[in-house]
């Protein structure tokens, strides 16, 4: 199966600015979605996207699919590694100086509005163990198939299924009141 990004990468490697713009337009929203949902912080997501593209520019002249990983899979792996670096740093800081957790529940005098629901879901997602969140982000938001998502995560498809199932059950439990609202 040919890699849909390979031709564009060749042009990028030659310094074609139109191709670079096309690649950024194609991949930046996906990178921001991935990093934003993994980190729950838009500014950090932007930093990850920028760092990931620096690696793309460096890799472009050497990119050869040759039956190996697709470029999109490689890019997801790069971005996730950058996210995990930041999550690790966060944990180290949190251990040294634990932050106060904001109350994510709705105010008692008003119902849940769409924005509240979005915030609640985003907070519940951040509350999941990293690997469960990663599985849900890859399969639900990034719409990767099970084989590709498992390849990005470096696990078997059975392990991916387990992570997805546990993650979704935990989310459902955390968001029980949304169904009642």
């Amino acid at each position, binding site marked *: 199966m040919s890699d849909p990004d390979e031709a564009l990468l060749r042009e990028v490697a030659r*310094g074609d600015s139109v191709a670079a*713009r096309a690649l950024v337009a194609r991949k930046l929203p996906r990178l921001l979605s991935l990093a934003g949902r993994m980190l729950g912080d838009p500014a950090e997501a932007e930093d990850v996207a920028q760092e990931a593209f620096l690696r793309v520019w460096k890799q472009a002249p050497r990119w050869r699919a040759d039956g190996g990983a697709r470029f999109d899979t490689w890019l997801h792996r790069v971005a996730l590694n950058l996210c995990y670096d930041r999550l690790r740093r966060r944990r180290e800081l949190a251990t040294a100086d634990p932050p106060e957790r904001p109350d994510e529940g709705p105010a008692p005098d008003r119902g849940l509005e*769409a924005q509240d629901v979005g915030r609640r*879901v985003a907070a519940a*997602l951040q509350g999941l163990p990293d690997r469960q969140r990663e599985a849900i982000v890859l399969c639900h938001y990034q719409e990767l198939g*099970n084989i590709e998502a498992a390849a990005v995560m470096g696990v078997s498809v059975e392990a991916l299924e387990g992570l997805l199932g546990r993650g979704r059950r935990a*989310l459902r439990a955390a968001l029980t009141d949304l169904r009642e609202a």
Partner: protein
Amino acid sequence: MTPERFETLAEAFGGDVARWPPAERDAAAELMTARPEWAQGVLALARGLDAALDAAPPPRADAALAGRILATAPRPRRRWTGWLVPAGMGAGLAAACAAGLLAGAQFSARPAGGESDAIVATIAGDDVAIAYALGEGA
């Protein structure tokens, strides 16, 4: 497909069978035909969580972000460096220019007048030519 497997897949991949692993979709469709009410109940529960996940808005890009990223993209190679530098001509040309300037400076220090001054003006360029003309006029 067993009902347990159907539930496991709905729990993992959500309520849209089109997003389940391709190899299991046909078997899932058979079970949905055989037990439609039960299957729809399982899928509806999963779709509820899908909808909640979709309510979390995607991060929006800062308008300047794409510009910052593109500023770091590879640039095309400048063509003249492609043939000039590998041939060693860049360094040769620079040496020749330096030698010319040195010769010009040495010649211009000599007293003005005669045929050699015309040669100096020709070799060392416009600045010396102007100085020579002014000297002649004085």
